[in-house]
């Protein structure tokens, strides 16, 4: 879908300081080479299958389906991957690539901590140094993941600049990358940033829809009516959408974090409330004020608490191929509880945004049909925060 300069329609590009251009060009060249390299792909597949536990299950949520009374709801169980989320698919891909490029050190931003844990894990496995940048506020919300990263041998920096959340962690990573570029790869966690990241991360996550498409055809003998995924930067959604883009009958639905509602300032729903802009290396849509200052966004989910969206999503939205809907904190928490009770699966609060919409959607689709929800991560990390949200005073 992208052209040579890493554009999806008008979106994308490479908006980084000159200091980083050499590294970006080097990465682009290396990725173009290795993505066609049989040995690299075989090695990555081996890591994904034998280490991360792929392929992930496509699970028919029968109890939930019967309770809702609509079409069949399938869950793509990325939560069952090693480290508990889809993030490992990309982290292993980039870490392996970085290693091939002769890099010795990985740096990464993290919001909920899942990408940080995945990167720290890949670094431990491949014998690389690792430093993770996490907004100070998120280190409090996700203290357990901070400790996990340390256990895995990573150094965790609490970012105190700006809003102290995911966007500031990305800023700090870019600054650190300009500081030390020769031996360091920036393992960006979503389908965002300067080219080649949006394309490369999407390719590493596309394994989700490659498997899901085969699995649903084997189980149902037909394609689903829709695939549904949560969207912050948009990596699990891009992975879930990618191999269905050509299947015109399959609706692609991204669920954004509306926070306390798209009519409030406490929201992170970029498609619903954002405007075109240039930030974090890309031309895309961003939550911002009339002067182009990036907005301090909010969501209960640290992983969706980001003021932008990947350029390919902005493009899919523009051409009408994908739909994006806002889901509030309350709706996500309700879905979090619902899946836990009906299926015995505790979903990540991020993935709960997709579930919340899927439940509404399933009612309106014929019982013979199906939808797939990308269960991008497991909810262990969220249990304490949800308890607090519900007024119960427990701590990690």
């Amino acid at each position, binding site marked *: 879908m992208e052209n040579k*300069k890493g554009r999806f329609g008008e979106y994308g*590009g*490479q*908006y*980084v*300081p*000159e*200091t980083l*251009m*050499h*590294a970006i060009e080097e990465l682009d060249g290396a990725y173009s080479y290795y993505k066609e390299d049989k040995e690299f792909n075989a090695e990555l597949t081996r890591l994904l299958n034998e280490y991360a536990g792929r392929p992930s299950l496509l699970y028919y949520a029968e109890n939930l389906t019967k309770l809702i009374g609509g079409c069949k709801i399938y869950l793509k169980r990325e939560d069952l991957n090693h480290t508990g989320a889809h993030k490992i698919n990309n982290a292993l891909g980039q870490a392996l690539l970085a290693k091939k490029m002769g890099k010795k050190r990985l740096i990464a931003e993290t919001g909920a901590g899942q990408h940080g844990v995945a990167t720290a894990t890949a670094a431990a496995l491949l014998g690389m140094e690792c430093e993770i940048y996490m907004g100070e506020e998120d280190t409090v919300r996700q203290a357990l993941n901070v400790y996990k990263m340390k256990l895995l041998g990573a150094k965790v920096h609490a970012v105190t*600049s*700006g809003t102290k959340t995911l*966007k*500031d962690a990305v*800023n700090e990573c*870019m*600054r650190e990358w*300009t*500081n*030390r*570029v020769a031996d360091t790869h920036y393992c960006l966690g979503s389908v965002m940033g300067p080219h080649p990241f949006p394309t490369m991360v999407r390719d590493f996550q596309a394994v989700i829809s490659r498997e899901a498409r085969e699995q649903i055809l084997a189980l149902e003998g037909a394609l689903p009516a829709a695939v549904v995924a949560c969207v912050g930067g948009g990596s699990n959604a891009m992975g879930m959408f990618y191999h269905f883009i050509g299947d015109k009958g399959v609706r692609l639905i991204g669920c954004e974090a509306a926070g306390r509602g798209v009519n409030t300032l406490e929201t992170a729903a970029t498609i619903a409330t954002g*405007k*075109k*802009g*240039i*930030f*974090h*290396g890309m031309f895309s849509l*961003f939550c*911002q004020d*009339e*002067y*182009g*200052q*990036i907005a301090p966004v909010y969501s209960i989910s640290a992983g969706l608490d980001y003021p932008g969206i990947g350029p390919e999503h902005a493009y899919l939205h523009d051409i009408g191929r994908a739909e994006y809907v806002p889901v509030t904190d309350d709706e996500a928490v309700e879905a979090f509880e619902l899946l836990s009770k009906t299926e015995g699966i505790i979903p990540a609060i991020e993935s709960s945004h997709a579930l919340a919409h899927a439940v509404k959607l399933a009612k309106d689709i014929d019982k013979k049909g199906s939808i797939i929800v990308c269960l991008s991560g497991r909810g262990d990390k969220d249990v304490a925060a949800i308890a607090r949200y519900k007024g119960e005073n427990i701590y990690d």
Partner: protein
Amino acid sequence: MTDIQKVFANGKKAFVGFITAGDPTLFDSKRYLEIMQDSGVDIIEVGIPFSDPIAEGPVIQNADLRALKGGAHLEEIFAMVGRIQKKVPFLFMTYANPVYVYGYERFFARCKKEGVSGVIIPDIPFEESGEVKEVAQKYGVVVVDMVAPTSEDRIKKVCAESRGFIYLVSSMGVTGMRESIDTDISSVCSQIRQVTSTPVCVGFGISSPEQARNMAAQSDGAIVGSAIVKIIEQYGAYADARLREFLTSVARAVHGAG
């Protein structure tokens, strides 16, 4: 000859000075900018504050935050700069998004109206600069190209069509004061000079008159930002005398560099 080119006439070394507009208020900024041009600064960079300045170190990041908290918006910054009787070329230094959102046409037309000669936008590299340069040129505004220690083979294309001056980033990392600058500035400058006669000014990490003299001696000028902003951070609205003293000492060092 543009007003920027005139600064470098007869081999004169240029002192390029930076402050963030609106730090601590726009009222103070106007006075500080006037002090700058009266204290030997040859080219003035006015920072338009941005919420997420990824090329800046903590000193300028904090200045941006102070300015934004004080409500320094682009509209008011244009108005403030427009009221200054300019004796030297003024440039804006900012990020892509505020310029894009204001609208390229509207932004550069306003630059022309308020007497701003050029812009420095660190997150628009050469490859993405076509559209911005086209509009800027229409209004006679220069877009300054940047070269980094890692540019190497890129120098040829980045500098070929350069105008005004070339901003040579002294070392890797973000803006801010450094103990020492390890890049071989002379060697990078001579690579640039094989491509273009556009003057080269060195910035990032220059904090003392001695460093400024040293950098200017190896190039066509020295750019000082964080060290000036640091004085404003410390003295707020009462930095006049300290600024004059520091700027004069740097100007003397740069102009004496030979």
